[in-house]
């Protein structure tokens, strides 16, 4: 269990500054998820915490102790990579035991810990196999098992599920959630692109943008009270409708945000109306794209699959309590 503090952390590659002063606190035992657009520095920040990349300036503390110059193996971390990064020539057992062996642990202790981790992940029957004899999902479980065997204070995950297919991704996501539940001692930091992973796994989410922290908060916080148009547009799927121009001016702001599930289709009392230009039927819900004269069509969620013909004109009424108003700088107005 480690309490992680980042104080004005910066990282430059040559002249290019990639991490531009990050202040962040990750509480002991917390599941923290980093999200952000591609290239914003999620992986870099994770690698700075791991020690695989050196920090240019700033201070990194684990439980108050300075970590900047410690090598990765002395930080008490374990890392799970997107590409699994198993040792191809070692069996599953040897893969999981490698770290303990290098740390000169006793044979019996190694066996006990590997077997416990294997049982936890239900890979006990695979211990004698080589990585190439495993499926993708099994490989990632072994990689997680290898991390568990290090008995780390901090687990670091860099997009661990993005090489898996959709069904397996859901299963492994549950596995990781369970792992976090079982190992309440360990702090976890998790990088992902995936909205659902972020919302379901995180205790708190940290949204990064161009090397800086944009907002930190619980998934509900970020969803309901985004601190900027950037976060509003980034968190949630489909993304929040952001309307500019005359429509926003009518509500006394520069940008008006409203989520698709907060717009009712109605005959009377309609605030906006427009033509349905596109519809996506997902079975449980239907998303209608309605052209109300803004730059982009407004997305409206409708439960069920009652079809509305393309080209039909509908009236829309946004729920006033769910409107988000932002000023010219993208900051919320209250």
């Amino acid at each position: 269990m480690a309490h992680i503090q980042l104080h004005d952390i910066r990282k430059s590659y040559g002249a290019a500054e990639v991490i531009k002063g990050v202040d962040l606190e990750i509480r002991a035992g917390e599941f923290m998820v980093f999200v952000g657009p591609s290239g914003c520095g999620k992986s870099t920040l994770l690698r700075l915490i791991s020690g695989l990349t050196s920090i240019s300036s700033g201070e990194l503390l684990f439980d108050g102790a300075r970590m900047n110059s410690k090598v990765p193996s002395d930080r008490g971390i374990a890392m799970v990579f997107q590409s699994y990064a198993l040792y191809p020539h070692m069996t599953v057992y040897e893969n999981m035991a490698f770290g303990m062996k290098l740390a000169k642990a006793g044979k019996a202790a190694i066996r006990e810990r590997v077997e416990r981790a294997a049982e936890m992940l239900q890979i006990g029957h695979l211990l004698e196999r080589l990585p190439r004899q495993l499926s993708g999902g099994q490989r990632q479980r072994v990689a997680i098992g290898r991390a568990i065997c290090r008995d780390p204070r901090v687990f670091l995950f860099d997009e661990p599920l993005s090489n898996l297919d959709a069904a397996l991704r859901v299963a492994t996501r549950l596995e990781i959630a369970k792992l976090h539940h079982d190992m309440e001692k360990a702090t976890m930091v998790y990088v992902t692109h995936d909205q659902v992973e972020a919302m379901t796994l995180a205790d708190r989410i940290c949204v990064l943008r161009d090397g800086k922290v944009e907002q930190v908060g619980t998934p509900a916080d970020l969803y309901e009270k985004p601190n900027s148009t950037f976060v509003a547009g980034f968190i949630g799927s489909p993304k929040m409708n952001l309307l500019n121009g005359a429509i926003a001016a009518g509500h006394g702001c520069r940008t008006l945000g409203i989520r698709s599930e907060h717009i009712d289709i109605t005959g009377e009392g309609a605030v906006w109306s427009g033509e349905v230009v596109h519809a996506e039927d997902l079975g449980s819900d239907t998303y209608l794209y309605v052209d109300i004269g803004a730059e982009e069509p407004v997305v409206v969620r409708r439960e069920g699959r009652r079809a509305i013909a393309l080209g039909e004109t509908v009236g829309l009424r946004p729920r006033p309590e769910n409107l988000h108003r932002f000023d010219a700088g993208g900051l919320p107005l209250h």
Partner: protein
Amino acid sequence: MTALDLTKKAGFALAVATIVTVSVFPFYYAVITSFETGTALFEVNYLPQGFDFGNYLAVLGQQAFPRNVLNSVFIATATVGAALLLAVTAAYALSRVRFRGRGLLLMTILAVSMFPQIAVLSGLFEMVRFLGIFNTPWAMILSYTIFTLPFTVWVLTTFMRDLPVEIEEAAIVDGASPWVVITQVFLPLLWPAMVTTGLLAFIGAWNEFLFALTFTASETTRTVPVAIALLSGASQFETPWGTIMAASVIVTVPLIVLVLIFQRKIVAGLTAGGVKG
């Protein structure tokens, strides 16, 4: 099966037969000849005419020949060892450590391997004399290592560059030092490449003639190719084809055995390393 299929198969079989014949025939002829003595040597025949071990006994009976074989074994083995040790560590640096002029260095290494042997012979000779290793095995080991290193380094660097960085990083997180990373993580993955380059270095050193001829002065320090070339017959004008062929067979067989042993492992190793970990 249609007529077309049949023609295709026949054509393929013919092509294979031709290739095998062309590549194996010279060696086959050498083997046959090595079992012949006297005037039979000069008759052209394509089937063995009986087995006469006279040539083999003659070769092995020569004082220096067994010694020459030992020289060759020692020199080729030491060359392979030195070249691989230097090449693996150099390849690690060239593929993993970022430093100024890395690209230039790699190009220089490649350029060195393009020099013809004869161009550097006199320079090398001076160096050998300066180091005081003329007429010792070390002269050959030094020069062969110099000549195989560029190729070995180049191949291993390309190979190592293709190994996923994450595997190395996983090992670092697990607490591995660079030496542990090289020996316990990279070597097992690299060894198909090492076997291949090592084998080529061995064959190169085993067959080399020019340096071996230049850097040795006495019968006991010669390597096998030189010894064979300098085998003399009963008179100055007679070339002892029988003994030459017997000697050639004796020194070729170990190479063939070596290749056959490692060939299976090369294939096994390649498939093991080629799969994404």
